[in-house]
Structure formats: structure tokens, C-alpha cells
């Protein structure tokens, strides 16, 4: 009386074959589209504005969005520009700063995701397959998860000092346990599947069982979890910078721009609103991709992720 529907439609899929199915989902397309636009904005920022994001001009402080002024360019020439997003309290062009800020956010998101997924996958496989190490590893992960992630990142950054890589590592560490748990739970459930037992009975060596029969089951959930890690990383980086302990203030990041806009917020809200909107939209786009992929890959994942 077993229904054939127990097979997930993408069960046979390997990583590459997932792509068309993922792109068929509207959330993935919208989220992905927004991300591509933001990435392009960051990448081609020098083409979109001639202004250096750290160029100060004391005569044009706190200009409202749309104001025009003449700025000095890096090559010694001057240019008349419109400050689309206005300027900050030091007279820097917010449009340029927000565009360059996209680079940091996306870089942090990507780097943290790669580090977390790789580390989490490795530790999770070890914990799931080698029962002797499982208890110890999982207790350590429980302990790490007991420290709220922003606090942990704050403490690490406070000790190590601000810096791009410090922030990336500090943001990554609290995210690892969740991936470990996910991978481990998949390994444990797949290990009991008859097809894995059949492989054991056929004398397939353990490393081959891992890579051939168990690892592929983790791909889809890891892609989904990876996007959530990415969204969280972008958010936590922005929070750290906003609180003044993240990326050094001379680098324009959305968090830094907002931190600098705090003092005069009541009068000049644009210094906080523009980077804020970019930040929110970016995280929203990543989350939409995550949700869309989860629904496309396996609706049953809803509760686990």
C-alpha cells in the first residue's frame, strides 16, 4: 500500500541537475535577480559614479538627496555630480559609499557561507559516521550554540581587533553548529536506509559509502541552509559594523555608514535609510532564494530548516 509519491521528485538529482529545477521557482528567480543586480552595482561601482567613496568635502556636509556639487576626482580633475543619496556629515557622497558597501556585504556573506558549509559538512560527517566521536563533538556544538551568535561574534571581534577577516571568522564560528547538526541528522537517517545497508552487505568500503550514498543526500539541504547562513552573515556583519566593532570605519560598509548617520538621524534620516534599505533588500533577496530553493527541492524540509 505504499504510494510512489514517497519519492521526492528530485531524488535522482545531483548538484548540477538541480539548477533548472531551482530556476523554475519564482522566489529563486526574483531573489536571485535582485542579488545579481546588487552584485553588479557593487562590482561596477567605479563605472556608475566617478566619486571616491572616501572623498571628503567639508563644504558639502549633510546635503539632501539630489543635491549637486563639484568634486575632485582621483586623477586630479574635477567633476560636477549629483549626490543621488545626499552626503554624510563629513561631506562624503552616500551613493558612492552605498555602492562600494555592497562589495563588503556580499564578500562577507559569500566567504562566511563557504567556510561554514565546508567546516560544518566535514564535522557533521565525522559526527554522524564515527559514533565514538559523536558525543564529544555534539556536546561541543551544543555548547557553542548556547552562546547567542551576536554575543559570540562581538566577543571574538573585541578580542581579535576589528578587521575584515576577523569579522568573517567571528561571524562564521557561531553558524557552524547548525550546519553540523543538519549534516549529522541527515547522515544518521540515511545510514539506516536499506540501500546503504545493501551497500554494506556488498562489501563497499566505508569511504565510498560516505561519498557515494550519503554525501549526495546532504547537497540539497546544504544549499538551502547555506543561503540562510549567507543572509545571517550579511546581517551580523552589518550589526557589528553598526555597533562600531566590525569592519574598520575607513572602509565603507552599510553598517558603518549607518553608524555614522546615527548622531544626526533626526534631521538627516537619509544617511541611515539608504544603506538600511539596501541591506534589508539584500537579505530579503537571499532569504527568498533560500525559501524558494527549499520549496523546490523538498517541501518536507520546511520544519527542519
Amino acid at each position, binding site marked *: *500500500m505504499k504510494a510512489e509519491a514517497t*519519492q521526492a521528485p528530485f531524488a535522482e*538529482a545531483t548538484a548540477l541537475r538541480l539548477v533548472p529545477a531551482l530556476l523554475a521557482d519564482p522566489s529563486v528567480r526574483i531573489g536571485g535577480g535582485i542579488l545579481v543586480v546588487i552584485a553588479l552595482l557593487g562590482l561596477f561601482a567605479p563605472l556608475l559614479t566617478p566619486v571616491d567613496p572616501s572623498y571628503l568635502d567639508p563644504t558639502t556636509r549633510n546635503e539632501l538627496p539630489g543635491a549637486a556639487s563639484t568634486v575632485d576626482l582621483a586623477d586630479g580633475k574635477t567633476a560636477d555630480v549629483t549626490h543621488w543619496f545626499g552626503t554624510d556629515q563629513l561631506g562624503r557622497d552616500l551613493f558612492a559609499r552605498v555602492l562600494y558597501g555592497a562589495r563588503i556585504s556580499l564578500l562577507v556573506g559569500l566567504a562566511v557561507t563557504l567556510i561554514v558549509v565546508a567546516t560544518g559538512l566535514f564535522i557533521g560527517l565525522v559526527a554522524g559516521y564515527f559514533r565514538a566521536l559523536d558525543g564529544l563533538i555534539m556536546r561541543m556544538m551544543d555548547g557553542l550554540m548556547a552562546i547567542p551568535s551576536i554575543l559570540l561574534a562581538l566577543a571574538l571581534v573585541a578580542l581579535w581587533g576589528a578587521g575584515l577577516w576577523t569579522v568573517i571568522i567571528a561571524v562564521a564560528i557561531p553558524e557552524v553548529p547548525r550546519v553540523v547538526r543538519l549534516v549529522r541528522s541527515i547522515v544518521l537517517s540515511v545510514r539506516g536506509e536499506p540501500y546503504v*545497508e*545493501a551497500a554494506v552487505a556488498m562489501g563497499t*568500503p566505508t569511504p565510498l559509502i560516505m561519498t557515494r550514498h550519503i554525501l549526495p543526500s546532504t547537497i540539497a539541504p546544504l544549499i538551502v541552509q547555506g543561503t540562510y547562513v549567507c543572509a545571517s552573515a550579511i546581517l551580523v556583519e552589518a550589526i557589528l559594523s553598526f555597533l562600531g566593532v566590525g569592519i574598520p570605519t575607513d572602509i565603507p560598509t552599510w553598517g558603518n555608514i549607518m553608524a555614522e548617520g546615527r548622531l544626526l538621524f533626526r534631521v538627516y534620516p537619509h544617511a541611515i535609510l539608504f544603506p538600511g534599505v539596501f541591506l534589508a533588500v539584500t537579505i530579503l533577496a537571499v532569504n527568498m532564494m533560500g525559501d524558494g530553493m527549499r520549496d523546490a527541492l523538498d517541501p518536507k524540509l520546511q520544519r527542519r530548516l
Partner: protein
Amino acid sequence: MSPVLTIEQLSVRLPAGADRTYAVENVSVDVAPGEVVCLVGESGSGKSVTAQAVMGLLPRGQLQPTDGLIKLKGEDLLRAPARRLRALRGTAMAMVYQEPMTALNPVLPCGYQIDEVLRTHTGLGTDDRAERVRDMLDQVGLAEPERMAESYPHELSGGQRQRIMIAMALVLEPALLIADEPTTALDVTTQVQILALLRELQAAHGTGVLFITHDFGVVAEIADRVVVMRAGRVVEAGTVRDILDRPQHAYTQALIRAVPSLIPRPARAGSGRTVLEVASLAKSYRQGGWLDRRRVVDAVKDASFEIAAGEVLGLVGESGSGKSTTARCIARLEDPSAGRIRLRGAEIGSLSRRALRPHRRHVQIVFQDPYRSLNPRRRVAASLIEGPMNFGVSRAVALERARELLAFVGVDPVSIERYPHQFSGGQRQRICIARALIMEPALLIADEPVSALDVSVQAQVLELLDQVRTRLDLAVLFITHDLRVAAQICDRVLVMRRGEVVESGPTAAVFAAPEDSYTRTLVAAAPGRNWDFAHA
């Protein structure tokens, strides 16, 4: 007498994109008061959809009755408003389901769940309701009704849970009871009791019963009339004697022919060479963590037997009897706690995983669930050649053998490049058999290999297994809970109960003259046995 239930020309449409347009098409069934009508069919025949349509419980938006009439005591159900339907459910019609564990709410006491029916549909006071619940629990044969009322579903056995379900269904004496495979999830000895209880209560209250089942043994036990369904249509209808003894339609005839007979086939002598010797095998598990008192559960105690080449040994027993654990220990998917396992003269029971590897190929196993036995991400070819390649066979040679074996098990070798989900359950089980055979094992373990299959497919797979045994001179350890299956394939049987072997011997001898009292109960409980012996 006017019927309790009339279904006339009912059609239920499937959502667009399904493999057929209608789940149920032009189905007509009548149930008279005090009558048991069995709706029989294989999976996908539309029998459960018919039942749900009567209850008005078809999944919203997915299945829609498009045509026909359903009348309960003359009242048109398909056109009744939702409120009226709700008032009828529990009072005029009620349902009992297949899996009582999931059909009962796990977090509410059983008594509360029965009481809910009374609270919703009657104006009775607390004491009167408690009295009714107690009385009903008593009627369904549950001792200590007070304790039962307070207990939660997980604290009860499968049979007790199904009795609770029946109590809940019958507490307001509905005119119609729909029972959807109510004994399929139960052990045979429990099944026979539940069938008797249903018969007794139904007769006492004059309830009309629409009984859905796939099992002709059960049909023989309980039906007054039978309606056979296939792919959403009624194939044949008639009295139970007519359908079982004189089926008219070719499909019904084939279906009944496919039911394995309880009369065992004569034992065949194997080639005599002993392949497997098991001596005093035991397996115990520890339950609970490091803070609990350690409770030791003996899954298998002191099992000893041997199997010769060309022989099928059946391990027969109900759930929890330890038959699967025994098999898993022999396949060394689990480590036995004690005892010896000698395979082709070599002791493998205590070998380390590493030392075991060269012996692995001699024992292969076929599992129950064909949907989970093949890696869904790998082509059939990859699954088949994995084993031989582990033992140094070249890819080309392995592929060649894989094609031969697919042909041998009756799957088109051309489909070797397909993925498992492109095959039916029966085909998948054949592929699993091919995967086991490609290792050229001396012993094949088949753990309930046909239990997840429809009866017609089951017959074919059994036939295949029998060919395998004859042609390859294999020793087969065949695990089953189904005495009919055991009768048709096993030369000898071992009956297990709670981890212990209670009886063993040639199948015919054990079935005809069981010595152990449990074996006697088991054989007596096999549904439809009188029907078989009437044919003999």
C-alpha cells in the same frame, strides 16, 4: 429492507496531471442494514477514495465528486451542507482506519477522544457520558475500562488501540460503519480477534458495514457481499460465495489465483551441502541512557538452525518476534551478542568488520521496502555493478553480468540506464534481487520481500525467487509474517515468538499439526483458512 447506504454512479475527479482522469468512475455500491459489504482491490483501485467520499472527507480542492449520488438512509450526502454532514458523522456514519496509532490523537487520553463524540452530538451530562464511554469500552472487550479511558494511545497495544477506535466509532450506534483496512496494520492473532469483534458488534447493533480490504483471506472471514474494484471502476460484485468460488470476471479470477494457498507445497530436498549453521545466536539491546537503570531487551535468544543449498528456510513470526534481527545478525548488519554463525564452514559471527569483508559477498539480502532499497540518485547500472567492482571485477564485465541478470529477473536490460523511480514497486524488487544475485552469494536473505507489494505482483516475485533457488542452488532464508507466503515458498519453517524459536520443522508438518500452542494459535488465525481447505 431499504439500504443504509446507496452509492450510485459515483465519479470522483483527480486533479489535472494525474495518471488518469477519475479516481473513481461510475461506482455503485449498496449496503443493507446488518450487512458487511467488502470493497476489494489492489492499491490505486479507488476503494479508499470511495469511503472518504461517503464521509465527505475527501481532501479539499484535490478530489471532487463530479457525478453520481451518495445516500445515507435516503438522505443525499453529496448535496448536504457542511453543517449537516458534520452532524451525521459520528452519529449516523462512522469510520475505523487502517493504522490506529496514527488515527488516534497521541496527546489526548483515549477516553477523552471517545467522549468528544458524545459532547459534540448529545446533550448528556458529564456523568452520563462517562457511563456511556465505560460501557462502550466494556463492549469492545477492553478489561479495566476506567484505566483504558485514562490511558494515552502509545501506552496501548495495536489491538487495544483498534478497539478504542471501534468504541469511538460505535458509541452513538451509527447505521453505517466504514472500516478502511482496519486489520492490515495488526498481527494475525490480533486481526482474528478484531474481525470477530466487528462481526459481533455489527450483528448486535444491526450496523451496515462497508469494509475495505486488499486481503481475500479477510474477505472470506467477514464479507456477506463483495465488490471488486480496479483502477477506479467496479469490476464485479456479488455474494461472497459467488465471488470467491465462481468469479466471473478475468481480473477477479487472476486476483484470486494470485492469493497464495495456505496448503503448503511439498518440501524439496536441497543438494544437502550445508551453507549456514547458526548456533545459540543471541542479540540483546540496551535501552535508555547512562542515567537510567539499564534495561536489557533480548531481541533474539538462543536461536539455532542450519540451511542447505537449494533449500528455503522460513522464519515466521509476528512483529517483535526477532525474525528480522536474526537475519540482520547473519548478514552482519548488526553484531550478534552471542552464538556462532558459520557460513560455508567459516565462522563469521565474531569477525571484525575488516576481516568480514571477503565473506560479505556470500550473504546477500533483499529488503522489504523496494522504494528505499535502491539509491534514488544512482542509475540501476551503478547500483548493480557496485558490488562486483568492490571485489575487483572490471566495469565492463560487471555491466555485462548486470544485463544478463536483469534479463533473468524479468526486467528489460535496456532500462539499465534508468533511475529507480522510473520503475514500479515489483520491478524494483526484481532489480534488488538481481543486485543480490550478481554477487553470486551462497545464502540469500529475503526480509519480507513481498510484503509491500500487491497480491498479483507478490505472486510473480515469489515465482521469481523460487526460480532463483532452483536454478542457482541457493540457500534462502525467507522472513515473513504471512503464513500464506510461507506455505508457498518455504521448505522448512522456524516459528519465532518474542525472540525465541518455538517450533521448527518441514512447512507441511508444522502447518498441519503444530505442536507448540503459539504455533497453533498462529495457524488458526490465518484469515480465510476454511476457504482454502474447502478448495483443497
